[in-house]
């Protein structure tokens, strides 16, 4: 295991000695980025912007079109169309120093320092940036499976699943029942299940389906922005949403996709019109297979560099990482990506340290023009990335403030996707 001191020493040594290159002269350091989400795309963009002519950057991402997970609940709620959430990777491919490998990465060979792709090709790297997102634990909800996700969608990874969820949601009749199974911690985007439910309630109301009910079965006793969500639900969607903590329902005993049944320790729901299963998650499989994860299934990283504590040549960004006080949010991934990109550039090209700070801002849409946020500034310490300042919306915000928030969230969305795709 590589400790932080060793990582720092390596940093200084590399910077002083220049590029650690194999015998065959390799003019440019090879930076391979796996995963083109908020972390990976931001890393590629930053590396290219600052040192594209001096680095050989390869983005390994099988998708040609990226659909943002962030803001996808607004698509579900009918506020945003799907195409507004979609971005083409070709823009990244045109940046200086960037090559796109539109194939899935299969495995990381840490010894040989290369990434094996699904088509058999190999990508050697000097530094690897892993931003693989999450892997879903299909065994964590009894009766649910990969096959069942067509019938009981998760929509916890965007694109096709977001469409599947919306299709089923739009078909829920008035007076129907929606069951949302919320995930345990740690999870990608902790407030998202509750934003999703808010957006469902908003769309149900708008379409005259005011007798439809939403039950949320939550393995957690509490969740982020809880007071804000529950106030909004009482105020805008009274009687539509029932949140159940473990004290009431104990656990989900089983789901039966064929009959749309959900069995709990309190009651059994039969012929539910929609069941949205958001399961337990771990880091993306490629990180798990590379033995970069801790017992909880996520990757411990150095707070100062975002390097894996197990491998000084590999950075792990975003949802796959354990990043101290930072939430698993797209903005956090982008902030970490910028830090990692700067570290790489310093290691190979420009010695000298700058004070490091991470940020995250997370919006939750409660209704049509009603958004709340939680934001944090973080600094690395020996122990972990620590929260140094945070801000959260108030229960007593005026309607105008909430409307301003909605407009700010749109600007935030533009900025974040701009950092990813330009």
């Amino acid at each position, binding site marked *: 295991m590589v400790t932080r001191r060793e990582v720092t020493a390596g940093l200084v040594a590399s910077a002083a000695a220049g590029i650690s290159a194999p015998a065959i002269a390799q003019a440019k350091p090879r930076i391979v980025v796996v995963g083109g989400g908020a972390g990976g795309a931001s890393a590629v963009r930053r590396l290219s912007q600052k040192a594209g002519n001096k680095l050989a950057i390869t983005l390994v991402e099988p998708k040609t079109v990226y659909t943002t997970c962030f803001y996808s609940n607004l698509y579900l709620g009918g506020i945003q169309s799907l195409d507004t959430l979609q971005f083409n990777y070709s823009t990244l491919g045109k940046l200086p120093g960037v090559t796109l490998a539109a194939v899935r990465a299969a495995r990381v060979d840490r010894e040989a320092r290369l990434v094996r792709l699904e088509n058999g090709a190999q990508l050697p790297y000097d530094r690897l940036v892993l931003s693989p997102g999450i892997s879903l634990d299909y065994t964590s909800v009894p009766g649910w499976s990969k096959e069942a996700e067509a019938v009981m969608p998760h929509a916890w990874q965007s694109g096709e699943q977001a469409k599947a969820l919306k299709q089923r949601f739009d078909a829920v009749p008035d007076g129907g029942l929606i069951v949302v199974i919320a995930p345990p*911690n*740690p*999870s990608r985007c*902790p*407030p998202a299940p509750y934003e999703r439910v808010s957006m469902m309630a908003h769309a149900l109301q708008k379409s005259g389906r005011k007798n439809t009910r939403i039950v949320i079965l939550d393995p*957690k*006793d*509490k*969740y*982020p*922005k*809880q*007071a*804000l969500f*529950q*106030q909004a639900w*009482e*105020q805008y969607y009274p009687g539509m949403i029932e949140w159940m*903590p473990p*004290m009431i329902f104990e656990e989900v005993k089983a789901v039966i996709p064929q009959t749309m049944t959900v069995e709990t320790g309190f009651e059994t729901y039969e012929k539910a019109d929609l069941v949205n299963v958001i399961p337990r998650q771990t880091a993306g499989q490629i990180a798990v297979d590379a033995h970069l994860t801790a017992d*909880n299934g*996520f990757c411990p990283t150095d707070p100062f560099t975002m390097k894996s504590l197990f491998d000084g040549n590999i950075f792990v960004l975003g949802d796959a990482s*354990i990043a101290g*006080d930072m*939430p*698993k*949010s797209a903005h956090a991934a982008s902030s970490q990506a910028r830090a990692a990109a700067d570290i790489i550039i310093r290691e190979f090209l420009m010695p000298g340290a700058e004070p490091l700070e991470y940020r*995250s801002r*997370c919006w939750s849409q409660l209704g049509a023009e009603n958004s709340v946020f*939680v934001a*944090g500034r973080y600094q690395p310490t020996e122990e972990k990335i620590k*929260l140094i300042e*945070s801000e*959260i919306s*108030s*229960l007593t915000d005026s309607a105008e403030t909430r409307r301003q928030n909605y407009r700010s969230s749109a600007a935030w969305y533009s900025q974040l996707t701009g950092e990813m795709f330009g």
Partner: protein
Amino acid sequence: MALLPRHAWASPELRDKALNELTGGRPISDGRVTLTIPQVAENGLSVYTTVQVDSPMTPDDHVKKIHILAERNPIARLLTWHLGPRSGTAKVSTNIRLAATQQVTALAEMSDGSFWRDIKPVVVTIAACIDGG
């Protein structure tokens, strides 16, 4: 949404007055009662609470009533449970509203006329985004 002005609400004094009315001035002992309530309630709108009283629940020795009292809610007595020898246990749960950070009291009245209590502090706040990871 606005609420009644704070000065119209309960206070530790009003809570003590309510306790006095419920006990008829009799002494209250600490113990036998366990109030389980979160130390930090993210949301005061719905706080899940369990009270368990150490009692054999026989016809000769059982819990007759359990009250929950608040010191900084609009009213002091939030609810009363009525139990008896057919209850089997003196374990009850419900979800309550807490208007602010405060101490919550569970008061049990026994069949022998004695009173017992547990008191726990609860911080009511909006928490920032903690992903628990």
